[in-house]
Structure formats: C-alpha cells, structure tokens
C-alpha cells in the first residue's frame, strides 16, 4: 500500500522572486503540500535534520556558499540522506551541470525557461510524482 502521508517539499532557492513564483505556481495548481524554503545549500543541509519524511527536494544550482551540485554530492555521500529524491530546477542550461546532476541521481533536471509556465509544469510534474511514486523508507 502506498504511503498516506503527505510529502513535504524542501525548496532550495536563493532568488526571492523565484520562490514567490513557485509559491504562486503551487497555489494555482492547488498543491497544498507543506513547503519549506532554504536560501542555499548550507541552509538546506541544516534543515534536512528536522525535515519530516517523506520529503522531496527541489534545488536551484547556482547559489551562494554551497551550490546545488555540492548539496547533491553531500546528500549522496551521507549515510542518512542518500536516499533523498531531488529535482534540479535551474536556469543553468549548461551540459556540465546536467551531467553532474544526473551523475548524482537527480530524479529530474528541469529548466526555468519561459516565465510562469515552466514553473507550473514543473510543479504539476512533482505533484503527480509524489502521488504515484513510492518513497523509500518507513512511512
């Protein structure tokens, strides 16, 4: 049986307008999952400790202090959080970033391309994703 628990979403994003846009996309699609925001990898890493499972991470790549790739690496290297499901949502269309992210087993690499709608599509995907996909670990 699939988990009945609602998935918490950790959004790692340093740009407040992108955060706003994502919240707006959540609202528009009536996605009511709990949403927590970290402003960079360092903050996200600290938040992971208290994050209720199941959770799902959406991370930007280019951020101060610890970027998305570094955060991913840290997560994959850790005993505790290596099973995390992480999506990259970024403006970086750089081949190297994509390769690095997939090598670190992102569930999907999504581009912030056109305004608004790319966010809505991303959120719609993630909304479907957590409803269909089984999450690791005990409920």
């Amino acid at each position, binding site marked *: 049986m699939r988990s009945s628990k609602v998935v918490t979403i950790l959004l790692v994003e340093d*740009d407040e307008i992108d955060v706003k846009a994502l919240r707006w996309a959540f609202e528009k699609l009536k996605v009511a999952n709990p949403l927590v925001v970290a402003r960079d990898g360092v903050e996200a890493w600290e938040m992971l400790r208290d994050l209720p499972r199941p959770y799902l991470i959406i991370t930007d*790549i280019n*951020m101060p*202090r610890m970027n998305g790739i570094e955060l991913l690496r840290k997560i994959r290297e850790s005993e505790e959080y290596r099973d995390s499901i992480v999506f990259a949502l970024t403006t970086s269309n750089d081949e190297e970033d994509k390769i690095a992210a997939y090598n670190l087993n992102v569930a999907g690499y999504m581009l912030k391309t056109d305004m608004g709608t790319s966010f809505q599509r991303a959120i719609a995907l993630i909304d479907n994703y957590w409803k269909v996909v089984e999450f690791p670990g005990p409920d």
Partner: protein
Amino acid sequence: MTDTNRARPETLETALRALEEAEAKLRARDGGDTGITRLAESVKRSEERFRMLAEGVPNHLLFLDRELRIEFANDVFLQAAGWSADKAIGVHISEVVGVERFMERQQYYQRALKGETVAYDSTGAAGSEHGYFHFSYRPSFDESGKVRGIFSMATDISERRKIQLELEAKQAELLRSNKDLEQFAYVASHDLKAPLRAIELLVQWITEGLNGYDTNNVQENLGLLTKRTQRLNRLLDDLLAYSRAGRKVGAHRMTDTHALVLDVAQMLNPPPSITISIQGQLPKFATHPAPLEQVLRNLIGNAVKHHPGPEGCVVVSCEEQGDHYVFAVEDDGEGIPPQYAERVFEMFQTLKSRDQVEGSGMGLAIVNRTVQWQRGRVWFEPAPGGRGTVFKFQWKKHQPQAASVETKACEAAK
C-alpha cells in the same frame, strides 16, 4: 694508466698505445707482420675525424677520466672557460662548475661512472653562469668492459629555453583567458539571466494586478522590478570593470597611497558607526594609481558593506617586503569561513543571496584579476584579534616590465 694519460694527454697517444697492444696480440697469434703501418694510418684518420667532429660542433665536449679530471676538452669549451688546452688538462670537473653545482651533479657523474648514459637540463656551464644547458654523460668502456671515463657534452639551450618559457607563459595566459570566456558564458547564461527572468515575472504579475486579479501587490512588485533592473545594471557594469581589470591602467606616477586611502574612505562615505583608519604611514611610490585605488576601494568597501554592525572598525596598513608592498585591509566583521578561500575570488560569487545583501559578487574577482595582472597575490586570513577578516595583497614597487608582454598576449588571445 690514468697517470700516464694525465701526463701525456694526447688522444692519439692513447689510441696508438691501444693499437700497439692489439698489434702485439695479433703478432703473437699470427706470428708475423700484420700491416701495422696500415692500421696506424687508419687510426690517424679516425683520430683526425674525431678532432674535426669535436671542434666542429657548437657544444662543450669533455672527456673525463674515472677521477673526473679533464682528459680532453674541445675548443668551444676552452673558449667558454677562457682556458688554454694545457691549463684544462688534468683539472677536476668541480673546478669548472664550482663546488656547489658539482655537489648537485655528482649523482649524475656517479651514475655515468657506473655505466649509465645520463642526460639532464640545468643552468650553468663553463663561462656561463646563467645559460641553460642540456648535459649528457656517456660512459666510455675499456676492452674488459670497465668504465674508463665519461664523455661529457653540454649543449647551450638558453635560446630554446627562453622561447619555451615564453610559449608556456603565453599558453597559460591563453588557458586563463579561455577559462575566463567559459566562465563568462556560464555566468551570462545564469547570473545575468536571473534578474531578467525576474523582471519578466514581475511584469507579468503587475499586468495581472492591473487587470484586477491581485491589485494589492502592484506597488510592491513595482518596487521589486526597480530593484532587479538596478541589479542587472550593476552586474553589467561590474562585468565590464572585470574585463578591463588591469588593462586600462593610465599613467605611471608618484602616488601617495596614504592620501589615496583617505580619499577612498571619504568617497565610500561609511555610516558613522563604522570608522576607517590607517595604521602608521602608508608609502609613497611610483605606480599606476587607478588599479591600486580600485583594489583598495573594493576591499575597504566590502569591509564596510558586509559589516554586521552595530559598530565596526576597518584598518588599512602596509608592510614593505622585498620588491613589493603588502597592503592589508582588516575588519572586525563576521569573518569568512576558510572553506570559501577559493570561491570568494571567483566571478559572481556571493556568500549571501543577493536578496539579503545587494552585490554583484564581482568585487573580489576584480581585485584578484587586478592584483594578478601586477604579478601579485591576494588572500585573506582571520583577523589577529579573533573577530573579522584581514585581506592582504601584494603590490609591486615598480611596475613589472612583463606587464606589456602579458597585455600583448591578451590582445593575441582575443
């Protein structure tokens, strides 16, 4: 045998003696005349050919005996050393290269004396302290297979070396400028796009607001819109400043750095809670004032901007070290964790999000590039007081001549 060689050094003599021995052996075997005259002539011709070869090449040629004394030296060597042939024979090799170099090279001689052919490059040969040479030591064996001496050859490769170093410098410069370009392409696609995307989003929201969906936020969104256009503007300005860092240097003139720092402090116009002071007297010397001012302005400006308050001190000082000055800008702010030592000097890197502290993340990248252009280094350390950071950078007392070369390399790289 070695003694005889030293006393009668002619290679011909040595060869003739070897021939005599061979002759005696042959005579014993064949019991008759073996055409010694013919052989002697053949040896003479071969000796003649060796001499022509030894004197014809542009290299230093020496034959050293087992004790590393000169048994034969060619004209090129003798001319370089300023010695006559008589003076050279029997001289120990350490007297040619000096005891210090001899100690360094002893291992190579020993290897050659054990029968190995050795080659290496090094500075300093007879008559040329700073020239760069390729050395090769080839052991020479006697009939019984024992090493009887070393054939030493030194080839002057100073010119080749100079060209090689120049090429390497140019290659490094090209690699750096390529890396810059790549980084530029990356940041252009992200850091410059980010505010543009935000602007587009905000316009969309404002439009919706004006259409009556969300009228409350129109004012707020307009404020954010202004902020983002300013940010984009600032990013572009700083990117331009970065690309010019160290290039447009202006005139070289006597500069009072004490007055310069006072000017910078006044221009920065810090809040009254933050004081900028100078420790001691800063030097006065001939330099390009514009890039130096840029570096000091960025460092002092950073110290003021990132100070968490409520009260802060920024202290500028300078120390003389050999051919350069080391300027230090010390603050009593939050400090920078050492793991960011590399990253803080990269383009568009900030330790806080731009929404928290407005900044392009170009300030230290510009500092780094300007100081590097000066063949200097910039780094930071925790402030000695335990709180804050001290940024230090080297600034040459005299502008390096090489700067023009590098500028040329830059032009070529374009």
